[in-house]
């Protein structure tokens, strides 16, 4: 369970988050929608521990642990996964080697035995098949020469293999065609279960046609200004974000 209370954060002395309160119970998928510049990406980066953001107030508990006190790798080991809006290219690093290193780092931190190459490849190939991804995805260098859609699918592949407890999907739908969108959504839906929760950050409603959220929150001006059920997304789609900040 993720519990965010009164979270405020700045970047380069500019106040971006002005007091976020949000609870995501186990097994639930929540969507965060909002206009550009509302602080959506900042929220995902603060939760995953990226440098450059200063938390000035509030708290974040993840399964009762103080998430903000943990290094990024410790957050990953605890089960937090960030699907990047702009996945990073790693020239010279093979994708299979990268994902296996990550899976084993997380397993080791959790006190589980590491996976050998054969066992890992077996699981990775099965995940690739399940997610209708091209087989050569594992052989290429991480995100190098990948199309926008392939990069996002690679994020979902990593998520499938790392099996997080909480996934933060930062505008994972941006730049995706409808087929890629469906693959990404299938990946998230496949992970659904009592031990998986997600924050789906998106500007548009269309991803939420495929990943139906339990709750929708509207982030504007650094605060959550409205919360509701899935129908809220449809309302926003019809009427836009105008006027919400004043609400």
């Amino acid at each position: 369970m993720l519990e965010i209370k009164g979270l405020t954060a700045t970047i380069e002395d500019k106040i971006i988050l002005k007091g976020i309160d949000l609870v995501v119970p186990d097994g639930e998928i929540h969507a965060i929608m909002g206009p550009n510049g509302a602080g959506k990406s900042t929220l995902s980066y603060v939760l995953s521990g990226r440098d450059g953001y200063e938390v000035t107030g509030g708290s974040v508990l993840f399964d009762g642990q103080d998430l903000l006190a943990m290094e990024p790798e410790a957050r990953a080991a605890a089960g937090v996964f960030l699907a990047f809006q702009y996945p990073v290219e790693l020239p010279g690093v093979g994708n299979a080697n990268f994902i296996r290193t990550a899976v084993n780092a997380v397993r080791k931190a959790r006190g589980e035995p590491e996976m050998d190459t054969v066992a890992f490849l077996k699981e990775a190939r099965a995940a690739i098949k399940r997610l209708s991804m091209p087989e050569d995805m594992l052989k290429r260098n991480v995100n190098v020469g990948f199309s926008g859609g392939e990069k996002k699918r690679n994020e979902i592949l990593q998520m499938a293999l790392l099996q997080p407890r909480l996934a933060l999907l930062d505008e994972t739908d941006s730049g995706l065609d409808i087929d890629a969108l469906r693959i990404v959504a299938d990946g998230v839906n496949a992970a659904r279960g009592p031990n998986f929760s997600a924050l789906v950050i998106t500007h548009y409603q269309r991803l939420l046609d495929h990943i139906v959220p339990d709750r929708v929150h509207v982030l504007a001006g650094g605060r959550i200004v409205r919360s509701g059920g899935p129908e809220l997304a449809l309302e926003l789609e019809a009427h836009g974000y105008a006027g919400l900040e004043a609400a």
Partner: protein
Amino acid sequence: MSELDFLDRIDLASVSEHPHRLAALDAFRAAGFPTRRDEAWHFTDLKARMRDFDWAQKGDQAVLALPDLSWAGVVLRDGIWDAASSRPAPFMSRLVRDEVVRAGSTALVALNAALGQDGVEMVLRDGEEGGTVMMVAQAGASAQPITPRYRVVLGAQATLTIIEVAQGSGAYVHDPVWDITLGPGARLDHYRLQDESVQSVHIATVFVAMGEAAHYNGFTLAVGASLARSEFHVALNGARGDVHLNAAQLLTGRQHGDVTTVIAHKAPLGASRQTVKSVIDGAARGVFQGRIEVDRIAQKTDGYQMNQALLLSPEAEIDSKPELEIFADDVKCSHGATIGALDPEQIFYLRSRGIAEADARALLIRAFLTEALEPIGESMARPLFEAAIEGWWRRAAL
């Protein structure tokens, strides 16, 4: 220590009276250690490093494990052929030093010629396939400069892979010289691992003379020594010669590492490719000097040189000096140099996947080196080189 102090340390009574040797000794005495005034040594101040050199730190060879010698090879200890540890291939023999003395083109080659104790000769007949041999030089107990000489002669179409390992403990000076001649169509794969003690000085000079359509495929990984230089002089004397000369140096603390190459295209249709990578941490300093010479006759030469450095700390430093001297008009020659740091975005991406920061950095540095390691492919040498890179991570404590 000046040259005279240096020579004082040497047991000159043991130097052969052979006129070549005495001439070489005079040449070294006259030239002295190179200083920064010597253009070829402008970035590597050997003289200053020798001044502070502390011979007192004696090493212990017993602590050094030999690399897996399940294949043929020769072990030199402090420059002396160690018969007990060696398993020479039939074409490897002990070199009679007085007969081969290359005119001292540099002070260090002259020193090698003057003092050289043992050497190893590898001579392959036309068409002979030599397979893979190990050439291990271990050092540590010697108060004398260690000056082995290697002579490699490959007949037409002959092939050989040499895995060369230099390692040691304590303070010593290792000054090996390679004299390589490749016949028409011959191919030599030469994988060099410089893993010397961090108190040592290592100056290697490699001469390669290539016949028509000969192929020299070289890779040097340098992780050790207080001051190290690998200097290559490759001459493409016959047409259609092909040189692949890569190197990677990993430097930390106050280490100084230098890779210097001179590739002389003296015949048409030759190709040379060089990728040299330096990873520099602490207050270490790296040097790359690469000269490509293309004679008027060497038309259709294809030369490529890439030099990249990754600086891991604010005090790390690289000096890079590419030089092209082209006298033919129909050639393709390119060179490039980049200097950079690790990308924080990449590090965060890896950490967000659960990979600890130190491991993330190691992974990215290893990726940076990948291209330079290409010449060794998946050969038997690979595990040895990967282990040396691993060892460097631990020492640098990234």
